[in-house]
């Protein structure tokens, strides 16, 4: 990144994330990356759909899944997505403190989602539903686990960005990162919509 | 720089190939180019149709290419700038539409044949049902209607539809009898069992191959398909069901029972599918699918096989009879599991296992 893009004419433009070529590149590149992620998750979904009835002697989805827990997880992630929207709004209004608050809320919700998922996996394993149990279990843990890993990465990433904001403030360099991480966070939410639909709800239906 | 002669030279490989095509169509019992049954014939017809269309395309492209290269090559000292053409609607439409037409000509019979060859005769009482199970590196053929199992050599009656049901006992293989019709994978596991029907109008022996990489001896996983007339087929079925005597010599019998029948079956002894059923091995055309009994005697081939199966077919599943030494010429040694005497006895006994049909 070159030196001259830290501040344009001394004040922050309305949409600082798009003020520099580097910022615009970042946003565009990130969207392309999300295109790749769509295919990545799509392949995991395809594998899951192909194998979801292969439960062998292991537990079947309608025995295993508990909808209230899934509903809670869904709500947590949905609200966290809203929080990150608000963070970006604050960014556009250059309200750094507000932005950080929203980001922290996002992270906390993300963490509680993760906690819930770990608890869930634990319960399943104790019920005899391990990665090695059946083709269904393998594809379940891989799909849901990949999503969980994405949440964990998001939490870590946004956490680091907060630290960077504290250090460097909101500039045309840091703004694109915040913006992009928010898009990432929404994407995780979007993937979750399909997970609760295809894995849990359809699993209950049969 | 490139003169006419050079251009001709470029075509040489093509011409040489064409000459080869005309002169050598391969063995009648092996080549896809000499179809010996209606299935291979239909496939061959499609192949000829497509080759003709492709030859046309290639000729047109080559002709334009050669003309252009000769006509428009830069002469020495020529510095004129050619006219900068952007494109030409008429031409572009032509070379979009003409290929579409050619593909239609090819596509319609393709679809017809796709559906035609996927007919299922498993409910047809006129058809012979055969269940094929592939193993590293041998083929098992079961005739559920007759309750018999054989290996390496598929015996079928001429003039009837043969309906195959194919699966694998281990990794993916592919069942292929080029001159009769090809080819279908044998997949492992339930839920992906395949079906294929073939017809053998002529009596004869046709070479079969495994066509999917399945391990070190994939190259050697050959089998034979022998088409005989209905009467002969019936005799074969009867012979397969007849009881089989054990070796007369007690020592040989003991060795055979303790060292061979643990995996193999012969006659009514049925040890399952771990190894080829040896009933009638003596009258098979090959031992292990690749040692031809018309080049050496059955007995010699059997001896070779039993004493160093691992050298002959690297990595096959018949290990502890020969030594487990890594294969390669000279590396395999004679059997350690059998004495010379037992080996001779067993080979002789097995060579005598002939079926009259």
């Amino acid at each position: 990144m070159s030196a001259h893009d830290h501040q344009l004419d001394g004040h922050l433009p309305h949409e600082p994330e798009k003020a520099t070529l580097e910022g615009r590149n970042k946003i565009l590149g990130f969207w392309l990356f999300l295109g790749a992620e769509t295919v990545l998750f799509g392949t995991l979904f395809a594998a899951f759909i192909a194998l979801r009835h292969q439960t062998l002697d292991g537990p079947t989805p309608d025995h295993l899944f508990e909808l209230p827990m899934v509903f809670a997880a869904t709500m947590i992630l949905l609200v966290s997505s809203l929080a990150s929207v608000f963070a970006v709004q604050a960014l556009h209004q250059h309200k750094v403190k507000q932005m950080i608050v929203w980001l922290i809320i996002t992270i906390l919700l993300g963490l509680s989602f993760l906690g819930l998922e770990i608890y869930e996996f634990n319960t399943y394993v104790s019920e005899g539903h391990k990665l090695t149990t059946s083709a269904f279990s393998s594809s379940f843990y891989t799909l849901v686990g990949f999503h969980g890993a994405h949440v964990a990465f998001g939490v870590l990433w946004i956490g680091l960005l907060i630290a960077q904001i504290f250090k460097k403030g909101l500039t045309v360099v840091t703004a694109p990162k915040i913006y992009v991480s928010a898009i990432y966070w929404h994407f995780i939410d979007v993937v979750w919509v399909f997970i609760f639909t295809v894995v849990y709800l359809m699993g209950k239906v049969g | 720089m490139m003169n006419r002669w050079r251009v001709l030279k470029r075509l040489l490989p093509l011409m040489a190939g064409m000459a080869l095509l005309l002169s050598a169509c391969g063995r009648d019992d092996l080549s896809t180019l000499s179809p010996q049954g209606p299935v291979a014939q239909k496939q061959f017809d499609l192949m000829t149709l497509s080759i003709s269309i492709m030859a046309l395309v290639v000729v047109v492209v080559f002709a334009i290419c050669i003309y252009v290269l000769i006509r428009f090559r830069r002469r020495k000292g020529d510095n004129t700038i050619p006219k900068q053409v952007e494109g030409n609607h008429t031409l572009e439409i032509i070379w979009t539409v003409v290929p579409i037409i050619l593909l239609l000509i090819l596509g319609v019979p393709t679809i017809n044949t796709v559906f035609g060859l996927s007919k299922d005769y498993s409910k047809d009482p006129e058809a012979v049902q055969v269940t094929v199970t592939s193993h590293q590196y041998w083929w098992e053929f079961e005739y559920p209607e007759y309750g018999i199992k054989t290996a390496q050599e598929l015996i079928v009656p001429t003039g009837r539809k043969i309906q195959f049901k194919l699966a694998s006992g281990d990794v993916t293989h592919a069942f292929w009898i080029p001159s009769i019709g090809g080819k279908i994978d044998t997949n492992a596991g339930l839920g992906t069992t395949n079906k294929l029907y073939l017809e053998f109008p002529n009596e004869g022996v046709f070479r079969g191959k495994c066509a999917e990489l399945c391990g070190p001896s994939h190259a050697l996983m050959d089998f034979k398909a022998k088409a005989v007339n209905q009467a002969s087929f019936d005799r074969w079925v009867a012979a397969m069901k007849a009881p089989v005597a054990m070796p007369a010599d007690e020592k040989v019998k003991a060795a055979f029972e303790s060292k061979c029948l643990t995996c193999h079956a012969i006659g009514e002894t049925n040890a399952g599918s771990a190894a080829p059923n040896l009933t009638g091995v003596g009258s098979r055309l090959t031992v292990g699918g690749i040692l031809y009994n018309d080049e050496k005697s059955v007995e010699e081939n059997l001896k070779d096989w039993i004493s160093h199966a691992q050298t002959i077919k690297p990595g096959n599943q018949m290990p502890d009879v020969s030594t487990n030494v890594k294969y390669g010429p000279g590396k395999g040694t004679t059997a350690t599991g059998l004495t010379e005497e037992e080996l001779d006895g067993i080979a002789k006994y097995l060579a005598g296992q002939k079926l009259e049909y």
Partner: protein
Amino acid sequence: MANDHSAAASEPKRRHRHEGPQKHVVAFVLSLVLTIIAFAAVSAGEINTTFTYIILVSMALLQVFVQLAFWMHLKDRGHLFATMGIVFGIIVVFTMVIMALYWVWW
């Protein structure tokens, strides 16, 4: 496309597209409702399976559309290539789901 951003940046006075939280809250409520419908359809039980599937899939698709459009700004100007990327990804995924449904077991 990217250059739109530059146009926007050079005219900072232009009224901005996503001022105020109302739209985002509306998107949130929409998502909420769609989620609840989906969960309700399953919890209710006793509905025809195929029908439930159709409800579930349409709720999911609607929700994804809402989130992509509002929260991820795909409907905004300057997202031509982003949209193309996502749409093409979805096409690839769609073919793979067909594959998983029809061509893996037989």
